[in-house]
C-alpha cells in the first residue's frame, strides 16, 4: 500500500517509491509510446508521469506498478492520437477478412528466382519500414498488436490494460494482424520493395 499523510499528499517514501518505479520503467514506456504516437512519445511519457504521480496513492500493490503505468501511458497515447486524428478511421474490414499475405506473395511471386519467397519478402523490410507500416494502423488495432507481438505481453494482460473484454481483444488482434499483413503488402508495393535486388 502506498502511504499518504493526513492532508492526502504522498509521503516522502511514497514519492520515492514512485520515482524508483518511474525511472526503472522509463525506457520501456518510451519504446511503447514510440509505437503508438511516434515522435510525440516523449510528450506522451511526460503526460503519463504527471498523471501517475497524482494518482500514485491509488496503487495498492507495488508489484502491479509496471502494468498500472502502462495503462496510464496507453490512455495518454490514445488521447493524443484522438486529438491529432484528421479523419475517421476507415478500415476495409470485409475485404480484409479474405486477405492472406501468404497467398498474395505466392500468387504474385515478386522474386521469381527465390527459393524462400516468403522469407525474402519479409527481409525487404528494415526497422523503419516496420514502424512506418505499424504507424498506418488505427490505434484500436495497432495497440494490441504491438503489445502482444512486439513487446511480448499476454493477451489477457493487454485486455486488462486497455479495459476491454477478452473476446473484444481477440477480435481486435485478428483484425490488426490482417490489416498489418495488408498494409505490409501495400507498403512494399508503394516503396518498390517488390523488385529483385531492391534492398542489399
Amino acid at each position, binding site marked *: 500500500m502506498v502511504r499518504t499523510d493526513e492532508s492526502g499528499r504522498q509521503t516522502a517514501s511514497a514519492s520515492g517509491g514512485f520515482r524508483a518505479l518511474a*525511472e526503472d520503467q522509463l*525506457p520501456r514506456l518510451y*519504446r511503447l509510446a514510440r509505437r503508438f504516437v511516434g515522435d510525440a512519445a516523449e510528450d506522451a511519457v*511526460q503526460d503519463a508521469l504527471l498523471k501517475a504521480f497524482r494518482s500514485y496513492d491509488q496503487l495498492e500493490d507495488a508489484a502491479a506498478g509496471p502494468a498500472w503505468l502502462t495503462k496510464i501511458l496507453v490512455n495518454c497515447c490514445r488521447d493524443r492520437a484522438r486529438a491529432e486524428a484528421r479523419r475517421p478511421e476507415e478500415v476495409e474490414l470485409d475485404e480484409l477478412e479474405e486477405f492472406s499475405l501468404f497467398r498474395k506473395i505466392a500468387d504474385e511471386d515478386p522474386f521469381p528466382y527465390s527459393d524462400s519467397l516468403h522469407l525474402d519478402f*519479409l527481409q525487404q*523490410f528494415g*526497422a523503419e519500414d516496420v514502424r512506418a507500416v505499424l504507424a498506418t494502423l488505427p490505434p484500436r488495432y495497432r495497440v494490441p498488436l504491438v503489445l502482444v507481438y*512486439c513487446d511480448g505481453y499476454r*493477451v489477457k494482460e493487454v485486455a486488462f490494460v486497455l479495459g476491454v473484454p477478452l473476446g473484444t481483444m*481477440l477480435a481486435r488482434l485478428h483484425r490488426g494482424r490482417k490489416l498489418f499483413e495488408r498494409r505490409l503488402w501495400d507498403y512494399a508495393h508503394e516503396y518498390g520493395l517488390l523488385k529483385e535486388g531492391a534492398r542489399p
Partner: protein
Amino acid sequence: MITCAEAVRQLWDYLDGLVEEGQRESIEEHLSFCRRCCGEMEFAEELRRFLAEHPEAELPEEARARLIATLDLLERQP
C-alpha cells in the same frame, strides 16, 4: 473436419495457445494433410518472429534527461 478457411482463421490463436482442446485437435488434424495451410502456419510463425525482432528505438539520452528533470520537479512539489 474443418475447412482451410476455418483453419487459417484460427492459426494465430492456435500459435498463441488461445484455442480450446477440441479446436486444437481439429486444426492439427487439418494441418496433417493440408500442405497449403502448413505453409500459412509457417508464414504466421515467421511473421510473429518478424514483429518480435523489430524493437522500437531506445530512449535517447537527452529525452531521458528531460524526463528525469520532470521527476525531479514532481518530487520538489510542496
